[in-house]
């Protein structure tokens, strides 16, 4: 596998990262090394003392977006024919989104230049506050419609959705907890079926468990076997214990 020098802090989102990988690093989307991206992040994470939960959440969002993009491109159509056309359309949408994102990234760079040109052109603060001259009662009488107030509050009631934070709660403890869970299972049993253990979980939990698994594979802590694409994954303890690995590295 190629070694990429990725400074994840620099990327502004999945499109940015993908664009760079594909054009600058000349990686085909099939080869986008998600494990390597995760590894780079985990290494950075290990070096920092305090866990930056917000950063971790953003990273997970970024990685899951990348996974989504990649899977859209990689997933084969059902058979030949119309389904294949569907896959092409998906790829085309991805291309369009990448290009749209790129345009605004360049526009932002241009704004940045305009900003630099203006640096040092100062505007003074106003010398005094404006004083509002209120109209007379006669002038304002019945100038507003009570129905406007009702509409405003209705809109607030209707548009207010209490944000569902349940998934955030899972995400926030996700990666470390799932790594710990996988380690625990391996200590207890030596090997297990991913499908049996995580198949019934929420999709998000499955995804984070898979990320945890990828991280453990990358460290050489676990070995996996998969009989068929999209089939069940058998997970087992790697032969070399982790302590020895850390000692050599």
């Amino acid at each position, binding site marked *: 596998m190629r070694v990429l020098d990725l400074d994840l802090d620099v990327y502004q989102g999945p499109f940015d990262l993908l664009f760079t990988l594909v054009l600058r690093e000349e990686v085909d989307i099939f080869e986008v090394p998600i494990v390597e991206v995760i590894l780079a992040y985990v290494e950075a994470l290990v070096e920092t003392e305090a866990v930056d939960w917000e950063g971790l959440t953003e990273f997970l969002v970024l990685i899951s977006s990348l996974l989504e993009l990649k899977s859209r491109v990689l997933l084969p159509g059902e058979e030949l024919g119309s389904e294949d056309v569907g896959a092409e359309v998906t790829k085309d949408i991805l291309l369009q989104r990448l290009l749209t994102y790129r345009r605004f990234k360049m526009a932002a760079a241009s704004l940045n230049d305009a900003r630099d040109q203006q640096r040092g052109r100062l505007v003074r603060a106003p*010398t005094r506050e404006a004083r509002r001259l209120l*109209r007379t009662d006669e002038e304002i009488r019945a100038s507003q419609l009570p129905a406007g107030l009702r509409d405003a509050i209705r809109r607030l009631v209707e548009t*207010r959705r209490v944000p569902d934070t349940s998934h955030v709660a899972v995400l926030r403890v996700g990666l470390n907890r799932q790594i710990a869970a996988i380690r625990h299972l391996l200590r207890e049993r030596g090997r297990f079926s991913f499908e049996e253990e995580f198949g019934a979980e929420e999709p998000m939990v499955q995804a984070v468990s898979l990320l945890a698994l990828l991280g453990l594979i990358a460290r050489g802590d676990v070995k996996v076997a998969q009989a068929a694409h999209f089939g069940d994954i058998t997970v087992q303890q790697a032969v070399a214990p982790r302590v020895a690995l850390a000692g050599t590295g």
Partner: protein
Amino acid sequence: MTEHSGISGADIPGRLARDLEALLFAAGRPLDLETLTAAVSHAGPVDRVTVAETLAALEARYPVDGKMGFELARVAGGWLFRTTAACEPALARLFDVGEELRLSPAAMETLAIVAYLQPVSRPEMAEIRGVNSDSALHTLLDRDLVREVGRRDGPGAAVLYGTTTRFLVAFDMDSPASLPPIEEFEVGEQQKEELKRRLGLVVSQG
């Protein structure tokens, strides 16, 4: 227009005068000789005497009560650009703005919250609107459509707001009770608490 200004220019070292003009213009408060000398010494030391001489030339260029719209005055041990007294009538018209009848969407929402849920606190308004509503509230207080009506008991003692008589005039209502019903029901005391709760407010706090 050249006869209007006292700009002669040639006698003032150009770069230094320009820097001093910019500094005094941007500051909006008096700057003393020491501060000005330090700031203009960005490309190498400039001595105070030269700066003082240049300032004197600028005082002549922007004389107090001169023909320009602003003047360079010696105030509080420093120099200050300010508008000339003769321009006060024009300035008064600029800074005394007439009340606009239209309310911005943010002001309308905030006013609706105060009207239906009064007495209500700032944090509650922010909570319901999902954004800080201080500037909208400021406008409403400024226009005398909303006023402070008390403080919540307990720690923090949040200021509570309600509508004014002027509000009733503008909306042509006899009392806040004549607000149009939100749902099929009138907003009574109980429903108000219910509404607050439904809007995600923890009313029991504080």
